[in-house]
């Protein structure tokens, strides 16, 4: 038994390095998507202290809208543009109808409001586009479907072109986002608002504008994640579950750190895959991916309550 836990998995890893690389690659791709969803959470939390429970459903809603609009006859890329427009309208509506009347309320109220948004979006999505599973319009969007076979160490490594595209697009998106946050007026305003509302007001930053902007960016991220995940697993409300994977990512990475969200997402993606293949399937009968991330987050919380990258909490007494 001990041998199975502590020795066999590592022997397997060394003996079949090509298979290990395959596992790592697949974990990395999931990790990229977890990181994207976590990023959506972090952006909204930083600028408004709201833990946005609706981030997961926004992914589903964006994907549904895209597929639905395409089914209604819009060409693929026009459907993407139209979906972006829908996400913008959604951001404006949420700010006007939900956030603005609740300014200054305790965080828990705002959190509850985002649960309300979640339920509303589920209902709206089902009413307009129906609840059945749909296929992402991968081909129409020009996302390649083949694969590349590499032969490292004389073995076999299969890279799906879809996965490669997902990783590249995600890297580009995160890069653009970081540049936007660090080098532009609006980006600086977003970061400023997260630090101190009063000071932000005093330098002429409008809360409302920034909130709309941040929710819109979260909507863009949701659309990209929705396309990527939808291409892998189909578009249905079950997708929402992957959004909850973002919660352990946030516990690891901290709610405020963009770097934390990225590193946390990749870590969870890779670790859960490795655990599943080398420990889960042989010893526990598989399907450990469903809970591994949460257990890992719990263990981290025991030792570092602020997360791996969160600021140390020092309270002056």
């Amino acid at each position, binding site marked *: 038994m001990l041998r199975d836990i502590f020795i066999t998995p590592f022997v397997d890893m060394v003996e079949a390095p090509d298979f290990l690389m395959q596992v790592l690659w697949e974990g990395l791709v999931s990790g990229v998507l977890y990181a994207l969803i976590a990023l959506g959470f972090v952006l909204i939390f930083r600028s408004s202290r709201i833990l946005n429970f609706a981030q997961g459903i926004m992914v589903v809603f964006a994907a549904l809208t895209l597929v639905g609009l395409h089914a209604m006859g819009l060409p693929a890329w026009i459907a993407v543009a139209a979906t972006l427009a829908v996400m913008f309208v959604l951001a404006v509506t949420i700010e006007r109808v939900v956030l603005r009347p609740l300014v200054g309320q305790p965080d828990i109220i705002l959190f509850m409001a985002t649960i309300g948004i979640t339920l509303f979006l589920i209902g709206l999505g089902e009413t307009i586009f129906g609840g059945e599973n749909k296929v992402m319009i991968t081909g129409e969007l020009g996302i390649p479907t083949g694969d590349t076979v590499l032969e490292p160490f004389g073995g076999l490594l299969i890279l799906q072109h879809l996965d490669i595209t997902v990783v590249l697009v995600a890297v580009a998106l995160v890069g*653009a986002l970081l*540049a*936007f946050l660090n*080098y*532009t*007026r*609006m*980006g*600086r*305003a977003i*970061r*400023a608002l*997260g*630090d*101190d509302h*009063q*000071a*932000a*007001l*005093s*330098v*002429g*930053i*409008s*809360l409302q504008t920034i909130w709309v*902007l941040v929710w819109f960016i979260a909507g863009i991220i949701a659309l990209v994640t929705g396309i990527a995940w939808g291409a892998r697993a189909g578009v249905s409300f079950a997708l929402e579950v992957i959004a909850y994977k973002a919660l352990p990512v946030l516990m690891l990475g901290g709610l405020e750190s963009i770097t934390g969200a990225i590193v946390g997402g990749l870590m969870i993606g890779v670790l859960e895959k490795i655990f599943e293949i080398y420990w889960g399937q042989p010893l526990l009968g598989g399907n450990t991916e469903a809970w591994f991330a949460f257990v890992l987050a719990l263990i981290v919380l025991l030792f570092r309550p602020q997360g791996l990258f969160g600021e140390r909490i020092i309270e002056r007494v």
Partner: protein
Amino acid sequence: MKDTEGYVTADGRQIGGVLMELRNITLKFGGVTAINDISFDIREGEIRAIIGPNGAGKSSMLNVISGFYTPTEGSVWYKGEQRPKMKPYEVARMGVARTFQNIALFEGMTVLDNVMTGRLTHMNAGILSQAIWWGSARDEEMENREKVERVIDFLEIQNIRKTPVGRLPYGLKKRVELARALAAEPSILLLDEPMAGMNVEEKEDMSRFILDVNDEFGTTICLIEHDMGVVMDLSDRVVVMDYGRKIGDGSPDEVRSNQDVIDAYLGVPH
């Protein structure tokens, strides 16, 4: 003194006409009257102080000017026009910059980024241009960066430009906050207790910066302070408040010899 006429200060500086006027301002919170029917003006180029004991309503007054509070009664006149009800960020965009009594900086950002936020009101490149960092957004960023560097040089904080503000000692934070307000090139600069909690040396530095700012950029400054000595040295005209009422208004010398002011500060036998 007429609105459009100026006056000459004791040290020979020419002060202009009225820039901002507060008319019969009353501010109530429920049953508490924080400000009771106060009127005064701020003239172009002067250093105007509001003083008074704790709880006199000085900070409330500053919050009314900067739009954080809306007065219950009375009106604010700015550049000859009555100011409609405005949100703080709108007031900021009209050229009123401020600092806070309990420093309000963006702790997670560097000194440079903090001061850059002061330029927000002067930047208006479109969101698309910003998103792709091209054209007007990039030129604007460069241009504003230059202005910010000048302010940073002026306040002698070059050596901490890249330091996150959270790590700075109190005195320097105050200076960074001043830099951020100054970067906005405001028509009026509001300072809420700029010297609070400072030691003598830091107070002297801050006084020098305030005078230099006024001298170099001609910025109109309105400040709150309860260190009487500092106020009398710095300011051209002083408003004295006590329990929400105005009990004195004039040059430092006039105020110093005003019986009501002496009573408020030293107490009177009943």
